């Protein structure tokens, strides 16, 4: 591919989740040229994996759809998936950025007809669903994926799978020889909207993630509850498919903890309360136990908390979980101390949901350029340098705070382009 040139007034937005989409759109709708890049195969990021938003309990794909439509209708935005920043040179106001586009193995001939998936004999772990089910090795990342173009996991493809997939495509869209491509663009500033990664739950030895199917993370719960998730929306215990009669929610699993993430991940309290509504909808009698340090449901969220704390089969225990013990019947026992009564609690439940926190992705994977970051890996904006952070790359935040800071980032970027 030939090098593409942006204009010196263009803005690069790194990350195509709700934050990056917002920054890109808000800047482009003012009139700036924008490059929006995303490292995975489709836009939408973390929120695309959520079943519902709190507190309205509405589907995130509703807001995403409008944003995707804005992207499609806007000639100022150029989008790249499977793309990362390789290096940055030049000066603020006139950066040269080398982008690397990983091979998708499906080219722009793809019509999204789905024949390759149909024909593909090979299965891979479904990453979108945190490996809770399998997908074909030729696949659409998820039902609502934008762009609507298939992807092939070449490593997951057998020799005969490769043949079948290639033969199935009537449009010559499968290209298993596709190579990594490099593109160079010129931009005035870069918005880092690289988002977050669920904190690795295996790092907390006492919570025994991976040692029992009954222990899942809150993001896995979102996929279980989603109609397009691995179970079609049934909340059941992975492995044996048991309908849970009792569920424990383990708050601050990694957050507010010097040994793990020292900050508060902002969303987990509300996420848990929201997930309690998922459970209640499906299991009117299920017992739910929430082990928390503080219930951080400020402002508009208080009303939502009230609904759940009023539920007669839901129990809120102020106390950090000390340990989770896998039991032979497939369930687990959650051990904690009630900070108010001093009582030691051993609560046997069918499932335990770890409210794992948000780890800033860029800090975790390392930035391709020198950026100011704090100890936790959040990016600190440097407006002089034209390096701007937004959303959860900047701080742990809910969606509304993320869209605010991403809109703000768009203006900071525009200011630099006009400097």
């Amino acid at each position, binding site marked *: 591919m030939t090098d593409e040139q942006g204009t010196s007034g263009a803005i690069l937005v790194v990350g195509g989740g709700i934050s990056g989409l917002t920054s890109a759109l*808000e800047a482009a709708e003012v009139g700036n040229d924008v490059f929006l890049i995303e490292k995975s195969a489709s836009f939408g990021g973390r929120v695309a994996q959520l079943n519902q938003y709190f507190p309205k309990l509405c589907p995130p794909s*509703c807001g995403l759809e409008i944003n995707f439509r804005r992207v499609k209708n806007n000639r100022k935005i150029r989008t790249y998936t499977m793309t990362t920043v390789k290096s940055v040179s030049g000066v603020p106001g006139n950066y040269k950025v080398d982008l690397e586009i990983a091979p998708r193995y499906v080219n722009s001939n793809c019509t999204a007809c789905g024949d390759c998936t149909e024909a593909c004999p090979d299965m891979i772990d479904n990453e979108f669903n945190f490996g809770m089910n399998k997908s074909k090795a030729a696949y659409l990342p998820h039902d609502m994926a934008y762009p609507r173009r298939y992807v092939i996991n070449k490593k997951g493809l057998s020799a005969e799978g490769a043949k079948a997939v290639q033969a199935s495509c009537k449009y010559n869209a499968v290209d298993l020889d596709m190579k990594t491509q490099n593109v160079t663009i010129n931009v005035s500033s870069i918005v880092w909207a690289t988002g977050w990664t669920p904190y690795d739950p295996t790092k907390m030895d006492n919570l025994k993630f991976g040692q029992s199917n009954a222990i899942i993370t809150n993001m896995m719960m979102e996929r279980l509850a989603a109609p397009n998730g691995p179970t079609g929306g049934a909340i059941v215990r992975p492995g044996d498919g048991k309908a849970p009669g009792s569920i424990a929610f383990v708050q601050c699993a990694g957050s507010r903890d010097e040994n793990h993430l020292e900050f508060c991940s902002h969303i987990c309290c509300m996420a848990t309360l929201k997930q309690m509504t998922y459970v209640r909808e499906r299991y009117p009698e299920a017992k739910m136990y929430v082990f928390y340090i503080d219930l951080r449901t400020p402002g508009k969220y*208080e009303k939502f908390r009230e609904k759940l704390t009023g539920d007669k089969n839901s129990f809120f225990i102020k106390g950090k979980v000390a340990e989770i013990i896998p039991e032979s019947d497939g369930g687990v026992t959650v051990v904690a101390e009630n900070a108010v009564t001093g009582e030691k609690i051993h609560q046997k439940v069918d499932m335990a949901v770890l409210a794992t926190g948000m780890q800033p992705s860029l800090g975790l994977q390392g930035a391709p350029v020198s950026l100011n970051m704090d100890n936790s890996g959040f990016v600190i904006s440097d407006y002089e340098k034209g390096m701007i952070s937004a959303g959860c790359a900047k701080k742990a935040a809910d969606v509304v705070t993320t*869209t605010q*800071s991403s809109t703000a980032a768009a203006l900071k970027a525009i200011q630099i382009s006009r400097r």
Partner: protein
Amino acid sequence: MAKTYCAYICSGCGIGDGLDIEALSEVVTGEMSMECKTSGYLCGSEGRALIEKDIQENGVNTVVIGACSPRVMQKEFDFGQDKITVRANLREQVVWAQGKPAEGEEPHAEAAAFLQESAADYMRMACTRAQKTELAVPYQLETEINKTVLVMGGGIAGLTAAQEAALAGYEVILVEKEAALGGKAAGWRKSFPSKAPWTDLEENPVPSLTAAVSGNKKITIKTETEVARIAGSPGNFSVSFKKAGEKSEWDAPAKVTVDEKDLIDKGEKEDPNKGLKVYTEIDPSATKVGSVVLATGWKPADVSQYEHLGYGKVKNVVTNAEFEKMAKAGKVPGNVAFVQSPGGAENDKDFPYCNSVTSMVALKQAQYVCEDNVDGKAYILYQHMRTPGHMELYYKSAQQQNDGIFLTKGNVMNVEEGTDGKLTVAVTDTLLGEAISLSVDMVVLAAGMEPTTLHENTVNLAYRQGPAFSDLELFDGYADSHFICFPYETRRTGVYACGGVRKAETMDETIDDATGAALKAIQCIESTDRGVAVHPRSGDATFPEFFMQRCTQCKRCTEECPFGALDDDEKGTPLPNPTRCRRCGTCMGACPERIIGFKDYNIDLIGSVIKSIEVPEDDEDRLRILVLVCENDAYPALDMAGMKHHKLSHMVRFIPVRCLGSVNMAWIRDALSAGLDGAMLLGCTYGDDYQCHFVKGSEIANKRMENIGDTLSTLGLEPERVTAEQVAITDYDKIPQIVNDFVDAIVEMGPNPFKGF
């Protein structure tokens, strides 16, 4: 534009397997008298070259594409803004929606014919739409556009918005009712950490920001000034200023309903707007601006209602805002209790309108107690310490840095005067395992931050729908209309709220928030300059046009517009303000005279599209049911249903609409008069947790549908032949059932008796 048409039918992706493409082309060339070409792969380079060639060589400027959904392959089928492109969704909603027969199930003997009929109708509809669509001509204001941003409120939010807009090159007018800039935050002694390592209180940023704003040549500052009224519309607002606290004849008039107007005219009610200029009158000395940032902040909530806490009765019980003033002025007492939740034993809620700000304020003020006093002791009595994100690090450090800060969860049951001028605070259920009684010099209540919009009109618009934002009670007095995905959206175009008026926020968050609001204000100006809509139809160059000669002054459009875009004159004739308009078409749906329409979406266009559906006579297997589908959520869900090969009845015909609010009941009446057997509206959830992108559209449509039932009865038709359903975008597995059940019910009722008349 003189139109040269050509239709193109793609046979790829299974379309050609299910359909007789040649016969389909003949429908286009025959009935629709339009040239028609086919391709096995229309979105591929050869297919597109075919179209491009016709455009280049044969002057084709109106293209009908019979292929996949209009939601995909937009770039491939984008032939430039000077071309009209209409898509017929043959793939997702016809061929793929025939479903896959279950194992052992025989497809209907006429299945292939049904599918062909369906595809033919979609081609007829698309060709008709192409014939009726005109190219959009972007709206241009009659006057020159004004690009100045008005910022209301000179606190930290307003100062930031002004400064950030100016840094992007815009002129700003900053209005503050007090004599000095800075707002409430100017009185804070310290501010929360705003940078790594997030551990230490910082100098208050307000003085330096105030100095920067005062020195910025692009910013005009008006202190001791208030906005009397804002008239006009984005790009051309007329702002009447007045001296703060004074009355003006240009104050924004209160809303007067039609009924109230009658009473006033009869002398039975006092005119609330006596002495005020009517809302449509333009102030000759008004200042022009392009858009508005509302940063009018907040007011401390009244906490005297919590009698057990003693505020207003017991000396030395103060609010956090009052305590901060003391701290700024000098030394604070050495023994202070901070009460974070008012609920006693009953509930553990924070004071209303606190958000997570007051937890941090308590920590900060507890630090003052320790700084100012050698043995200073501060007791923070909380239910939930709310220090989200990085503020957790400050929470920890405040405790580590100060031996005198004690925190406990607990129910504060009572505050009363004790001995020696001390106060006694009774707390139960503490983390110390027992009830405690504290003897302190002062009690500080964590009063919340009420948005100014809770009690006042604040924005003072001279609009037909009144001076304030609408439906504020739905959001506790806050003006935002889509607070999760699109927090800056309000129901008044070109007005963007930030800071305390939008949310109880810390200074750090306010700075982000105000910067974002400045962006939106600028974006609105630039979109207006290009003549296109702002969110959610951003970039749309069409706008509603009115054929006023036939207007009967029924006022429905002015009443129902969710965004207050329409004013009216003395007689009630609407006065459109296109730059306030969001292009949802609710006015078009409301108009009984059918005089409102867009270039590419109007009563005649959709009416003609409906009429182009072929209505077979006397065939119970061939009923025709019209489904008007909200293009925002329901239409994508239908596409998804198709992608998953869910079966949709062959008797339905889907037509996307901008919003259910734009659905004119004439379409439904005419459809049934023309012999269609039923009609359904498929749109978004409404009510408190509405999902309508235009806020009110689906709700209004449902109200209209209730009334149409009566109309049908008078025609001798069952009212059950029409229905409205609420769906979410994720309901794609449920939608087929909803649609098919309705079809079954119509089949049960039998064909429309008007058929063939």
